[in-house]
């Protein structure tokens, strides 16, 4: 389904999704991030990219698996599976969209993660093509994507100045468009050509290059024992920002939190974790297979550009550039890959 939506009709569409939770980028505290949109408010799609990625809608920072308590001396467990309202997210950049099928793979393979899927099944992603690269660190095209990639999105919107071209990609996406039916106009002669022109132009801007993507896995393998990892990782302060903001990083921790020491009542909680933390892999004995910064940087890069490729035939990076832009000490995954590939 392809339609035209005048800029001023965007709010009308959003209003017609009134039985859903709607999120869109909002500018606050000097960053763009997804925020809940109440009915009757305007949404602004002039954002660059959000600081947090859409993975937060399916894989929240903190998630309670179940509550435990004791009744007559016997543990009683109450699962806390989420049951969200249908959720529609506007303004999803194609790099984040492409992250989603990769996350789906992780939370599906071998064992199905019910907490992830409870949210994922209710989620509709309305993408917005990038007419301009939103940061000097964008490299979506270098990892096989594009500024108007449809991969992982339910709808792709393209900004044509006074109006959007809106394309329904999945059943969920078409459904969301049908709900807003009255807001849309038919596609007219010339619209298609204009969309193509905007897309072509968007691909013509320079991005961070990665060279031959197919050669990277072998280059990493050959450099497994190279000193370059330690060299490039030496400034890392292990803050975790690179993975927390990444649309495809999925590592987590599981811990028990005791609410009442007297009754033993508490919760088992999943929280985000990060492969750059020293204790991520440290055994209780103190033995640590990745004890130094270099081996941990190697893990982050290898997971995305070697292991995921070996297991799932695609990179686990969509080139959003967040880990580069936001790293407090300037550790740059593209520069690392460049060094590895030399």
């Amino acid at each position, binding site marked *: 389904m392809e339609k035209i939506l005048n800029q001023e009709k965007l709010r009308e569409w959003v209003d017609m999704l009134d039985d859903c939770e709607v999120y869109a980028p909002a500018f606050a505290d000097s960053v763009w991030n997804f925020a809940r949109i109440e009915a009757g408010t305007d949404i602004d799609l002039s954002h660059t990219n959000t600081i947090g990625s859409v993975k937060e809608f399916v894989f929240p920072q903190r998630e309670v698996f179940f509550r435990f308590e004791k009744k007559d001396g016997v543990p009683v*467990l109450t699962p806390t599976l989420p049951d969200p309202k249908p959720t529609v997210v506007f303004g999803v950049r194609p790099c984040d969209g492409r992250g989603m099928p990769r996350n789906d793979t992780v939370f599906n393979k071998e064992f199905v993660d019910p*907490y992830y899927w409870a949210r994922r099944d209710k989620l509709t992603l309305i993408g917005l093509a990038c007419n301009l690269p939103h940061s000097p660190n964008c490299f979506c095209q270098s990892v096989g994507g594009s500024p108007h990639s449809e991969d992982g999105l339910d709808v792709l919107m393209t900004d044509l100045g006074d109006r959007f071209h809106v394309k329904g990609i999945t059943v969920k996406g078409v459904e969301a468009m049908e709900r807003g039916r009255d807001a849309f106009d038919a596609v007219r002669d010339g619209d298609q050509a204009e969309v193509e022109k905007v897309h072509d132009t968007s691909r013509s801007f320079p991005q961070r290059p990665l060279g031959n993507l197919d050669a990277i896995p072998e280059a990493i393998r050959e450099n497994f024992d190279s000193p370059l990892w330690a060299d490039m990782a030496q400034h890392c302060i292990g803050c975790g920002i690179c993975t927390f903001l990444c649309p495809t990083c999925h*590592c987590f921790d*599981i811990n028990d939190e005791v609410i009442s020491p007297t009754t033993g009542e508490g919760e088992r909680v999943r929280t985000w974790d990060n492969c750059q933390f020293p204790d991520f*892999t*440290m055994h209780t*004995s103190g033995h640590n*297979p*990745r004890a130094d910064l270099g081996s941990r940087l190697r893990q982050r890069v290898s997971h995305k550009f070697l292991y995921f490729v070996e297991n799932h035939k695609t990179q686990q990076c969509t080139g959003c550039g967040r880990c580069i832009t936001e790293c407090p000490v300037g550790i740059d995954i593209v520069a690392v890959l460049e060094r590895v590939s030399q």
Partner: protein
Amino acid sequence: MTDNLYLPKIGRIVGIDEETQGARAIKTFKVEFPNDDGFEHDCGQCAMLSMFGKGESMISIASSPLVKEYKQFSIMKMGRVTSAFHAAKIGDFIGIRGPYGNQFPLNDWKGRDLVFIGGGVGLAPIWPVIQTAVARRGDFGKITVFYGARTSSDIMYEADFEKLKASAEVQLSVDAPEEGWPGYTGFVPANLMDKAPSPDNAIAITCGPPIMIKFVIQNLQALGFADEQIYTTIENKMKCGVGKCGRCNVGKDYVCVKGPVYSWAELKSLPQEY
């Protein structure tokens, strides 16, 4: 709705054996499923055990798959969860989810000699294999079990070893000289060299402290065992057990799913990250 893989089943401790004393004591727990929702497992698989309020730990299932009434776990006292186990009493409840991981390919070993080499708590993962091999005695050639402990009072499953002698050759060792000790005195790899089992049509299965495994494998190779004839298990820190939390990988493999059982030939092809 699919099963909630993070929701443990309830287990009840019905037996506790003190195997070894000291700072890193080992206790063996027999666990039943009071709600009759137990699961089957294969030799080499593990389970995620919980003490509610403390957390979870991955522990090898040390009983044979042929035993259906209970599951057995031998737990070394290390940190939060394992210490809570050591403080537990008969009748206490625990959480249990699994089984996780791959298995020893016992069916591929029909007609072959089996040489087991264990040290310390490393006997636990191979114990179900030994028990199953002995129960299917006719399927295999000669069965030899090497096991070493620090002192004779640190020997695990002592009573079961006595029974085992009827169907297998048992070679016990203690690290330091002891008055009246009938077995070998010295480390496990040395005992292995001393007895020098033949590699012909044999499979060697070893598990124990990393340093022991290293020398056992060197010695097996010296005895003529090929990499494909040597099996071991590896241990990495685990949280989810289901290939999602991202920490237990060795190269592209999540050990919780693809391991913990590997042939030395397979392990050699993976980066040394364990």
